[in-house]
């Protein structure tokens, strides 16, 4: 091994401060991690570091100067530098492609090669995949599980939460495209369309329903069956109900976020029997109060 003073390029009379200065100057140039592609840097750095290990230690330097020890063994042990690991293709978050991002934005073949190399190596989360699903109105209120068959033959089970609204997007974590490196898979995003229902319409948390009733139910009142998304219920129609009378079934609407439910609003509609009934006609023609009642009175005519 060469003379450590020579290696550091200082005279043997150099002060400790000069030694450190000389060492730092060389180490900055030669540190293997600052020269990842230079194979000779490591050898040179080891030599310099070994020399400084010897001379930077006042006690060892005194003994070396006195000839008690020589420079043998002052060379540093085999050491693994960061650069030995940084090149490994394990998709670690340390590696950063910002340094050539501008080249990748180009449209030429070189940029394409760079992009491909980045895709192959980067620690990337998989892409989110988008799907569409149409469900029945009733399912959107009570919740259900639907299965989507994927183009590749796989299937996704989608849990429809009760009270889902048209256009709502359901995220299935980790069901998207697989990631690269340590990046996890993306998510599946399912946009759910709620098909219109011929009976129910939705307004916020409430559900509206137009329900036909007979003339006798309207005049005399009575109990009738009313459909709700969760099944039929019995409702009392009060005596003297009219077309347009709206009755409220509490808690039979869509579930609210955070508990509770909206209501079902039942709008009554009086429907006469399909074929004219002579008995009814006879009654109405003799019914003076009915004839004298003008429902348009007071409204613009």
């Amino acid at each position, binding site marked *: 091994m060469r003379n450590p003073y020579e290696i550091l390029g200082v005279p043997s009379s150099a002060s400790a401060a000069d030694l450190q200065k000389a060492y730092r100057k060389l180490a*900055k140039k030669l540190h293997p991690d600052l020269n*990842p592609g230079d194979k000779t840097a490591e050898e040179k750095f080891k030599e310099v570091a070994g020399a400084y290990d010897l001379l930077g230690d006042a006690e060892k330097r005194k003994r070396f100067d006195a000839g008690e020890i020589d420079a043998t063994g002052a060379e540093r042990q085999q050491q693994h530098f960061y650069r030995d*690991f940084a*090149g490994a293709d394990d998709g670690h978050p340390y590696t950063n492609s910002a340094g050539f991002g501008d080249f990748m934005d180009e449209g030429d073949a070189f940029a394409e*090669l*760079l992009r*491909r190399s980045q895709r192959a*190596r980067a620690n990337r989360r998989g892409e989110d995949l988008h799907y569409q699903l149409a469900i029945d109105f009733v399912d959107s209120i009570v919740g259900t599980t639907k299965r989507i068959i994927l183009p590749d033959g796989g299937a996704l089970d989608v849990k429809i939460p009760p009270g889902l609204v048209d256009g709502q997007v359901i995220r299935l974590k980790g069901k998207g495209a697989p990631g690269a490196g*340590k990046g996890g898979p993306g998510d599946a995003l399912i946009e759910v369309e709620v098909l219109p229902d011929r009976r129910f319409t939705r307004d916020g948390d409430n559900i509206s329903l137009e329900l036909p009733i007979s003339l006798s139910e309207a005049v005399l009142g009575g109990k009738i069956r009313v459909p709700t998304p969760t099944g039929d219920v019995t409702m009392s129609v009060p005596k003297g109900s009219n077309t347009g009378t709206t009755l409220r079934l509490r808690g039979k609407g869509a579930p609210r976020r955070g508990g509770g439910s909206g209501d079902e609003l039942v709008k009554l509609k009086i429907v006469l029997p399909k074929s004219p009934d002579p008995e009814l006609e006879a009654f109405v023609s003799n019914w003076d109060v009915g004839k004298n009642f003008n429902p348009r009175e007071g409204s613009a005519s």
Partner: protein
Amino acid sequence: MIMTKQEFLTSSGVQVQTLEFWLEQEWLIPERTADGMNFSEKDVARARLIQDLKTDLGVNDEGIDVVLHLIDQLHGMRRALAQLHVELRGGQA
């Protein structure tokens, strides 16, 4: 070889507070697991680099931030270059 936080502290000689600071600065990003952190040999080598920068080269904390950022970019580019090399020779990725 995978190390726990304790094993990492022992083998690298780094103080706990120092490690906390490095983690906060994201100079080290060990793998997080349910029961703590896993340090790889790569993390140990990177810790040694940080120590070299600090003690041997006299770089202060601000400087270390800059150096690590540039080194990470450099390795990113070196990888891309290596990949390009493979592609240009018509080999498989």
